[in-house]
């Protein structure tokens, strides 16, 4: 079997690279930064920031010891959010648009609100709601729905264009 020497060679190569990397500056590219584990807040040490008050006796902590555990992972923004139950939401949105086209606005709102319960960040939900309210001559609500949809949509998307156009219509009213 030739696997063992091959694996050993890989391990050796890795070890060498590790040693070299410790001495070599690493290229910092323009790629999305990877977050570092935050250091513990330095200010919690009363020796670093002397307090005019006497150091108190240990108090019961604001959270219990046994159930405590080290702070997990990092806080970073997500690039894009996966859609929740797309087929269920799509089906409800289709029903909502159908009801809207048939001027059954209350039904359209009911369908859109069901879709919202499953995925509250689908911009199309607010596009339908906004259009329904506009049709029902409630431009203030229509405008707010458009704003909410815009908050959840990515710029340049077709839905965003429609939401922008809806917002313009509500402004015009």
């Amino acid at each position, binding site marked *: 079997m030739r696997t063992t020497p091959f694996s050993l060679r890989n391990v050796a190569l890795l070890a060498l690279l590790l040693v070299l990397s410790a001495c070599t500056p690493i290229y910092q590219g323009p790629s999305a930064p*990877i977050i570092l584990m935050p250091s513990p807040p330095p200010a*919690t040490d009363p020796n670093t920031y002397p307090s005019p008050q006497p150091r108190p006796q240990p108090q019961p902590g604001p959270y219990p010891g046994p159930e405590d555990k080290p702070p*997990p992972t990092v806080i970073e923004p997500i690039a894009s959010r996966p859609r*929740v*139950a797309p*087929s269920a939401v799509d089906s409800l949105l289709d029903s909502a648009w159908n009801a809207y086209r048939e001027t059954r606005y209350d039904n359209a709102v*009911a369908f859109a609100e069901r879709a919202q319960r499953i995925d509250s960040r689908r911009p199309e939900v607010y596009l339908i709601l906004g259009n329904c309210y506009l049709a029902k001559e409630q431009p203030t609500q229509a405008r707010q729905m458009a704003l909410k949809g815009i908050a959840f949509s990515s710029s340049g998307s077709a839905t965003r264009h429609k939401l922008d156009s809806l917002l313009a219509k509500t402004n015009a009213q």
Partner: protein
Amino acid sequence: MAQKKAPKGRKAPAKKRSTGKRSPKKTQHRSWLRRAFRFSFRYLLLPILIVTAITLLILDGVVRAKFSGTKWTLPTHVYSRTLDIYAGLEINRENIIWELEQLGYRRVSTPSRPGQYAASSRSIELHTRPFVFLDGDKSSQRARISFSGNEISALSDVRGKARPLLRLEPIKIGGIYPERAEDRILVRLEDLPPYLADAIVAVEDRNFYQHHGISFKAITRAMWVNLRKGGFAQGGSTITQQLVKNFYLTQERTLIRKAREAVMAILLELHYSKAEILEAYINEIYLGQSGKRSINGFGIASEYYFRQPLNELDVHQVALLVALAKGASYYNPRKNPKRATTRRNVVLKLLNDQDIIDEDATKQAVAKGLDVTETPGLATNKYPDYLDLVKRQLREDYDDDDLSQEGLRIFTYFDPQIQREVESGLSNRLARIETQRALEKNSLEAASLVVRVGSGEVLALAGGRERRFAGFNRALDASRMIGSTIKPAVYLAALEHPEQFTLGSLIEDGPISVKARKGEMWTPRNFDRISHGPVNLYTALGNSYNQATARLGLEVGVPEVADVVRRLGYEGYMAEVPALLLGGIAMTPYEVAGIYHTIAAEGFYTPLRAINAVYSADNEPLNRYPFKVEQRFSPTSMHLLHYALQVVMREGTGRSAYAQLPDSLVLGGKTGTSNDQRDSWFSGFSGNYLTVVWMGRDDNGPTPITGGSGALQAWSEIMSGLDNQSIPFARPEGVTYAWHDPVTGLGSEQHCNGSRYVPFATGSEPVEYASCQRNFESDVVDWVRRWLKLN
């Protein structure tokens, strides 16, 4: 007049005398009789006839007025949310079965009709009931739900074709009843299950279709039986008489009442058809008692005893309900199952004797158990705290009479599955805390509510630790000091001024003293009594530093912070004093939820709602309570605040939540502890649920728990039972991420020791940079990571 009458009186005797045939004695006798008759007619019979006629007219009016108009005051029935089922929904098989059982679905081997289901280890096949939903009628559907762990992996029709959605009808969760607490669900003759009408007639009044209200045959038979048995054994009342007794009269046993009953029965039959009378009887008859509430009619009785709609009942169940008509308390199947079984079998035998069911069906039905559910299908107040909220919101549009008499149908957002989590989370944690801290049993109280993020729908609400207890509703009425719960408002007020404050700005966490009203000094201190020096905003909020927050709030301005609290949704009174900055204000958990919902919904205010729609008794939509929204904060400032609230959860006072929740779940939240630890709060949210928990003593006494060691623990337990999604922490336009040095607050580089990647309102990123100490360790780790990724 007297003069005119006198000759007449004299004339008559003269006439009699002229005949000369009758003896004076006889004549005298006849005259007496005539006088007696005249007297009787004038003074007895005529008045009686007149009184009778008037009585009949009055009774006729009564009979017609009540029977032709609205016959019954109908209580309002309150329903839960409908359950949308789809592939990807996080719910396990057991919870779906629980939901089906609450709806009274029957478990069978092959579901062949609505209201039935079959369950295997990984799937459930069900036949849904038709239901009039808000967005249109839905007929009965057949579907198969497949599970993979705690998630629905597939939803299909019975032939295996995938379908996007399936909806279960809502669960009836309670009612609003009139003072005379009668409960009923009206049914029509055409909606009855097979055999019911026949069985009622066969058992109660077999000559129903022949008599005209009263049956002399039945009365004679009853008298004979009663004489033979030496006591009351059988009644001779017809169905019409029974209806009259229950519908118009009292239960007193007097001859006058009995006579009135008979007359009214005849009048009823004169005016109305047999079908109308039978239908009224089916809806009126008393069939049980649930606490103060009486169960009237077969419609509600079916739900009360079997948790099933009447039209789904089998013959053995129908027979039991008919059996109860003879004496609902005496034959109560939950208390006296043996007695009820015997009576039911008598009914079944009668049905067989009268060829309504055949021999085989009788034998099969007799062999069956009573099939009565262990607990009543319609507890009046199964969820009294939530119902309290529903009533309060309804009273804005309806008066009390409408609510208790018009038979309204209220559709709410109540989620019984989440309510279970809330109730068990609170009671488990309180018991545990009391044991751990050696506190007196039941000395602590709690309240909690869960709201759907974005829509503001209140999904569950507990007003105390005791389940199903309609007492003081702490979630709505316990106004308690909120402590640090208010801090996000202080930081939000600051972050709305990016030119002045960023998340990286340093603020001194040192002793601070301000002149308050009445010349007193306000000197806030940190919980740990330690001053932490200059700290950045996210660290100060994450660790809930009081001194830093007070200083920040004073710099921003108390009125500005108060304005932010109002924009977040608080409508009560606020004393705009420095103590407000550290939660020197009392709020109810419901009010706190309103504020935090605006935060969770990224700056969009939505009034919290419990009611979806109100329908009339005839299923006509009366009122919808649609989703309303108003943007009150910019996406930029809310994104920055969400970052800081995540710091609370990852590194700060909320971090112990991750002992019960998965690390991958992105959460935001804030602890709150009032002075002397009288109140323990935690308000936090995932991407789809906001939960607020309060703990404390009813006498407002001090406790040994903080927001972190009390409310947070229950919060985590509740949240661990929900199908949470992570906060969708996407960077909005107007936000730029930059590296910064947490100690100096200046800009930094990725490779610098301790540097951190933090969001800034675009244009407010640090322009000055701290001196950089290279973090070789992380450099190597990063480099190896990248190397491994490339290979």
